[in-house]
């Protein structure tokens, strides 16, 4: 839920990166962190296992600038993708303003993408949200790998509501900021409309 502090002239929004295990959610945030100017970012917090799998969440605050005299801050979160962390994913979606679904383009991960997308819809519903109504972007990650499904097939399978789709290679940064800008714009546009 967007928090607006009129006293300090700040808008704070929450964006959650969702998707199956090892799809590239943390890689997205890591790239954003590594390439953002120090004045525009806070620390990247990663609550992870010893093998660097996200255990609870990654978190990174990002300051985008000022609009109409209000500083706009985005809090970026990732969820743990492994199936058995569902309880944690549900908690992290609380108060979300925008969602990025990171899909793994590898052929053998398509079932996992579909399962994760259904899980997202369920968890949003249990938190009182509707995937069809919140700011939402689909990222097709790992487009550089040899065994990827064609993008149009992935879109046919995964796209839900005509949301923007961005192809990406998060490990190299390709498509990462396009995805972020896309969801952030939707969030601010939604704020304007509401």
């Amino acid at each position, binding site marked *: 839920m967007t928090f607006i502090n009129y006293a300090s002239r700040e808008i704070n929004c929450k964006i959650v990166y969702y998707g199956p295990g090892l799809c590239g959610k943390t890689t997205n945030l890591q790239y954003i962190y590594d390439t953002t100017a120090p004045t525009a970012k806070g620390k990247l917090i990663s609550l992870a296992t010893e093998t660097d799998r996200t255990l609870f969440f990654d978190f990174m605050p990002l300051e*985008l600038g000022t609009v109409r005299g209000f500083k706009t801050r985005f809090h970026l979160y990732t969820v743990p993708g492994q199936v058995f962390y569902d309880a944690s994913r549900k908690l992290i979606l609380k108060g979300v303003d925008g969602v990025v679904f990171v899909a793994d383009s590898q052929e053998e991960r398509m079932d996992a993408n579909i399962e994760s997308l259904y899980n997202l819809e369920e968890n949003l519903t249990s938190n009182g949200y509707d995937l069809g109504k919140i700011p939402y972007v689909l990222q097709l990650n790992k487009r550089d790998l040899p065994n990827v499904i064609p993008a149009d097939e992935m879109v046919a399978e995964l796209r839900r509501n005509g949301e923007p789709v961005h192809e990406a290679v998060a490990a190299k940064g390709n498509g990462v900021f396009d995805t972020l800008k896309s969801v952030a714009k939707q969030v601010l546009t939604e*704020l304007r409309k509401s």
Partner: protein
Amino acid sequence: MHEQQYLQLGHILNKLRLESFSRVVFLVDKNGQQIAVHGDVGNIDTTSLASLAAGNVAATGGMAQLIGEKEFPTLSHEGERESIHICIIGRMLLVVVFDERSSLGLVKLRVKQASRDLSSLFVEVERITQERRDREEALFAEITDDDIDSLFN
């Protein structure tokens, strides 16, 4: 939250900090947004602390529900030198960082007193927000596509 309520909030938090002899007092919303902070922040990354406090409460809240409780209204973490006490007040979290100059008992007592003042303030904030909603919506309705695009240039 508006100017006057923000000042009142600052007053309550500062009073709590002084009366509990604590180092820092934060108000954080349950989604992890920092609302206000008072005291000797030092090197503490307050944004991260706010997010982690909310995550902490969310995780323990999940555990509470699994055992049939609604939530755990307070959480305390004791360190070698510094400790943290968290109290849930509606949609907000009051986070107190204290050291050997204070004690958990004193912090809990003062937090209980402050939470009553904060609860009343939050009710007022909600009321004023409802009253001013139309005016505030007009402010954001003026945001143009160019305003949004300029953030990403």
